């Protein structure tokens, strides 16, 4: 197990790859702050504090949802590339190509949504893009979908490069997942945790992007030739398969920062045990087949699909709750660690991920879904694990780079604590809204719902302030970091 039990080394990426990681993180930080401001405008509108034209609300909702999912992937790609490049040889032009396609796609989407007025949501549920009662023109829907397609193609190439590099370094994707260890008991070429995670990400994201591209192309054909219809239930399945897998994969990308840094901070290795490998293999399969939990209220779906959606969603929580979460806790428990900003962000991220899974699993229960699906409970669950799980992992890498990858504790962790408190306040208000039956995606709220919205708006201000602090610190050091790289 030689390779897997030693501590991860500091990453020294001498080539261009490092430059791209920095640019990815910079773009992620900037877009993140803009999207948070868009989110704040929506929350203020729901609070009754800001008179916002519903047309604009839904445009902002579409931009916010699409943009946030996009930067979750962009930031995730930066984190995973950074750590993976210490284990396998990656071609850095792929990072540049993906970023170029991403930025062109973003411009297309911004023009389509804010100038063209497209507001079909980040899920562009067929046939809404084509049928808006004249609220947006066909060209806006086409441009938005083309923008998505460009972003998707960029990430597809990126995933294929990751898969290629793992196959070149470890022999096959199966060996990247450690199946020779898991099933045959081999002790040679044991993949480190980062490689296992990257293999899973490459597999599932590729499949998600193929399904996503297929349904985007079908929708584009339908926009051009309205006489060619799509089966709406098929479109829904493809969209939720794509959306579920893609957004879930982003946190499997970012978790590599936890696998790499906590061991270096505590001197305790993160072993690639067979339980660890089994957990990742289970996750790989589960993340692909539990998406019917988004279709529990589509009674046209077969009942067995709903039943599997419920039961497997529960099983899917095992790997994260029991293996990765407990593993991280064991590594820091009584380790002599002195908390600083980076380590506290990493601890928070594990809490945010584990806790964010809980409301999701509960809502994946059909009896609960009947009265909570498409209420604010849903944004409650995903903001929980994205805002308090995924983002702290990305911030941790930003600050780690600013500190020249030195893992000895620096300063206090006050900013992480404040971010956690504002973030918890913010997501709790979504969850309380769901408990009170408030529907999601409503531009205007009834007066009795507004108290949750108002508290959330105040909390969002705190979240945005701290996010700005983290991102500004990274951007301030960016020129120096780029010169070094």
């Amino acid at each position, binding site marked *: 197990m030689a390779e897997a039990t030693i501590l991860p080394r500091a990453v020294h990426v001498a080539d261009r790859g490092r430059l791209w990681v920095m640019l990815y993180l910079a773009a992620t930080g900037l877009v993140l702050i803009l999207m948070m401001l868009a989110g704040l405008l929506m929350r203020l509108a729901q609070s009754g504090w800001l008179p916002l034209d519903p047309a604009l609300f839904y445009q902002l909702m579409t931009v916010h949802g699409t943009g946030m999912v996009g930067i979750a992937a962009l930031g995730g790609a930066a984190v995973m590339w950074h750590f993976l490049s210490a284990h396998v040889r990656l071609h850095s032009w792929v990072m540049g190509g993906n970023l170029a396609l991403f930025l062109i796609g973003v411009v297309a989407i911004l023009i389509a949504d804010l100038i063209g007025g497209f507001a079909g949501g980040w899920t562009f549920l067929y046939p809404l893009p084509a049928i808006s009662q004249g609220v947006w023109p066909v060209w806006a829907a086409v441009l938005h979908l083309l923008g998505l397609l460009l972003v998707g193609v960029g990430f597809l190439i990126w995933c294929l490069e990751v898969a290629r590099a793992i196959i070149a370094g470890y022999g096959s994707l199966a060996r990247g997942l450690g199946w020779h260890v898991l099933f045959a008991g081999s002790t040679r070429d044991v993949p480190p945790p980062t490689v296992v995670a990257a293999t899973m990400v490459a597999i599932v994201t590729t499949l998600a992007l193929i399904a996503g591209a297929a349904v985007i192309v079908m929708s584009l054909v339908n926009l051009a030739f309205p006489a060619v219809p799509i089966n*709406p239930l098929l479109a829904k399945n493809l969209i939720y398969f794509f959306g579920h897998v893609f957004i879930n994969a982003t946190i499997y990308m970012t978790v590599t920062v936890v696998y790499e840094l906590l061991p270096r901070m505590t001197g305790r290795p993160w072993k690639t045990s067979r339980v660890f490998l089994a957990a990742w293999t289970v996750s790989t399969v589960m993340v692909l087949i539990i998406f019917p939990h988004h279709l529990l209220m589509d009674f046209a779906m077969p009942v067995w699909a709903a039943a599997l959606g419920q039961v497997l969603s529960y099983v899917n929580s095992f790997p994260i709750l029991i293996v990765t979460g407990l593993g991280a806790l064991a590594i820091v428990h009584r380790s002599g660690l002195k908390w600083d900003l980076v380590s506290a962000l990493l601890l928070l991220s594990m809490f945010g991920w584990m806790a964010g899974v809980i409301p999701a699993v509960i809502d994946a229960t059909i009896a609960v879904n009947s009265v909570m699906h498409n*209420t604010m409970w849903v944004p409650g669950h995903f903001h929980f694990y994205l805002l308090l799980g995924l983002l702290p992992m990305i911030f941790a890498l930003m600050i780690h780079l600013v500190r020249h990858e030195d893992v000895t504790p620096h300063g206090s962790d006050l900013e992480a604590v404040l971010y956690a408190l504002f973030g918890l306040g913010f997501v709790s208000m979504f969850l*309380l809204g769901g408990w009170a039956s408030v529907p999601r995606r409503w531009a205007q709220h009834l007066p009795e719902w507004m108290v949750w919205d108002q508290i959330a708006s105040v909390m969002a201000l705190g979240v945005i302030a701290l996010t700005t602090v983290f991102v500004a610190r990274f951007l301030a050091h960016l020129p120096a970091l780029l010169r070094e790289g």
Partner: protein
Amino acid sequence: MGIQSAAGLLTLVAVLALAAVFLRVRRLAHDDRAYAPVQGNAYRVRAIIFWVMVVVGLPLTIWLVRVNPYSLAADAPQVVRATGYQWYWELDRAQVEAGRPVVFEVSSADVNHGFGLYDAQGVLVAQVQAMPGYINRLSHVFKAPGTYRVLCLEFCGLVHHGMTTEIEVSDGGGSDG
């Protein structure tokens, strides 16, 4: 207790318990001990949680699958056809009786909508997606008379939040609804 409150309470308890564990680990991290005993403990805890989740949680969730809105009431239900349009609902009748099953035949004339039934206190009591080309049948027994509201629960465009209607539920005592 309603389903929402049960779900909320369960979430609250589980998240607080998890937070307590994290706070304890945070507080004790500075204490420098050897890894092996800590890890041994973690493996034991992991085994306990795993078996509790398998032995208690898994049968529970499998059992709970039977609590679903998919099967239809057989005995002489009242039938309501509901069709979603951007951005209004068309119901072929808006009065039903409490205490007897109602079957809603829900569809859409344009995009996806969501048929969400809210009681007089504003609590969501049942829902089903309204999809073009499909008729989704939702059966529901109204427990109490009153004015119920239908709210759209699937994003359908500009006036999604304005797509509501009412259903009058009368006392099942005798008069024909």
